[in-house]
């Protein structure tokens, strides 16, 4: 490698500051104030309002590249669903890399509620289907044509958790936990055709794109990014990874704002010279 591809000194200072801003607050363990977000509260209230036994579909559409943001909200939502004794059907339409993450979250949270929730009666993991547009269309006509069996290869039809479900219309709520463009497919081919209630958990990169759907009430609520995941954890009342991460995230945000301000001060000072 030639000398000129090495990073300049100023960039090293910034990298070091970012690393320190990530590590030190995480180790310090101080308390943070509340961070209200009405779009997050709306989704929480929607789940709280569901009667016991309502079927809820959760689509795990994220890979390890978005796990840090979406895993905390997935755990919080699942805890709330199990506490409320809702029937949770879990699947993935994004890519095969999402499946072990889905199984990991469900395994951990179902262990916390061992004795209170049963696989096959309170929750089921139905697996992965490719081609989201085709899969959602298929589920909209007949759910079992896309997912005839669960991941343990047991037939879904006749399972207590699937009672009364034949198409997407029969779900009380569909929550998409997404890192890619899956919410667009769910909204266009699912929600608008079959008029089910839909909530969204997404990475922060995508969050600003879905405010139009919140205002048009196509989405009942949204958890966008880690700060929203932190809010959801607070609402559910069980501390999770987002709470620990928010300390570092808050300091890093302030650091970047400071860098922007300092950079502009330097720029205008140089221009004046």
């Amino acid at each position, binding site marked *: 490698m030639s000398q000129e591809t090495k990073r300049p000194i*100023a*960039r090293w200072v*910034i*990298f070091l*500051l*970012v690393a320190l801003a990530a590590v030190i607050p995480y180790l310090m363990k101080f308390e*943070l*104030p*509340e*961070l*209200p*977000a*009405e*779009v997050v509260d*709306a989704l929480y209230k929607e789940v709280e309002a569901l009667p016991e036994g309502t079927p809820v579909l959760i689509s795990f559409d994220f*890979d*390890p*590249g*978005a*796990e*840090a943001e979406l895993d905390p909200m997935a755990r919080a939502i699942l805890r709330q669903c199990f506490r409320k004794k809702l029937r949770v059907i879990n699947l993935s339409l994004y890519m095969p*890399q999402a499946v*072990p*993450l889905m*199984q990991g979250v469900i*395994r951990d949270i179902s262990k916390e509620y061992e004795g209170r929730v049963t696989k096959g009666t309170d929750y089921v993991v139905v697996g992965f289907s*490719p*081609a989201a*547009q*085709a*899969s959602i*269309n*298929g589920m*909209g*006509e*007949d759910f079992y*044509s*896309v997912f005839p069996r669960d991941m*343990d290869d*047991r037939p879904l039809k006749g399972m207590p958790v699937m009672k009364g479900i034949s198409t997407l219309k029969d779900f009380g709520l569909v929550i998409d936990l997404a890192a890619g463009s899956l919410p667009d497919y769910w909204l266009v081919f699912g929600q608008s*055709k079959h008029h089910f209630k839909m909530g969204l958990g997404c990475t*922060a990169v995508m969050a*600003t*794109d879905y*405010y*139009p759907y*919140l*205002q048009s009430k196509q989405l009942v609520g949204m958890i966008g*990014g880690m700060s929203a995941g932190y809010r959801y954890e607070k609402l559910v009342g069980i501390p999770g990874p987002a709470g620990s991460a928010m300390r570092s*995230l*808050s300091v*890093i*945000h*302030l*650091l*970047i704002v400071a*860098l*922007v301000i300092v*950079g*502009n001060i330097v720029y205008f000072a140089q221009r004046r010279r």
Partner: protein
Amino acid sequence: MRFFKRTIPLALTFVIGVVFFLQPFSPHPFSGKLLELFSNWVAIVASVSLVLGLGSLFLVHLGKIRKQGAGWGYSAVLLSCFFWISVAGFWPMKVDDPQHEGQTIWKIGGDGVIESHYFWIYWNVYRPCGATMFSILGFFIASAAFRAFRARSLEATLLLVSAVIIMVGNIPWGFEWGGGLAGSLKGVNWLPDFTKAQTLGPDIRDWVLTVPNMAAKRAILFGVVLGGIATSLRIIFGIERSYLGGGRD
């Protein structure tokens, strides 16, 4: 030969495109059944196309090793890891039968066996790499914010101010400051009363997200949807043919 290479694919696109364009308008149960049938077929063919794409990657790196081109050693690493996880995926193991308690069955690792070496490789190799790849950008975005975010013009200043409002508003302390600022403005009679607004939230961050940001994103959405519909129509009528790819007419 042109009939098979060009006419048939274009006709197939046209016929299937028109059928599924008209499908939502048909109340007959057959149209729903047709959608269900085709949806399952497309999912299967799409999986095979993914397999094709992955296979192409495999062949590219195999070619690099054969020709001993620049960086062929890395291609050898890639293919070794590919074979490592493939062998693990097909490795048979005896596991508890989930459908019959107390019994065991033979399964291959890739068939949902969490304890298999296949998933061990996923959790300990793929997952750390996947998570780390995107996290590197965390450093570069800070560096870019320092070097490139300049209030050179009115537009750039608007972008900068909006970004700062969002970044500060997304942290608990920032929400307190922003809420306090919006709250202090409530007493001024000629400003809109944010707390009674149909848009969500009293603070400045929420106003930026639910009013100007939403307006622009909605307009972008209109543009994208209209463009997508125009492209779909062009594809169906055979004006746009780039999706056909491969071979000569």
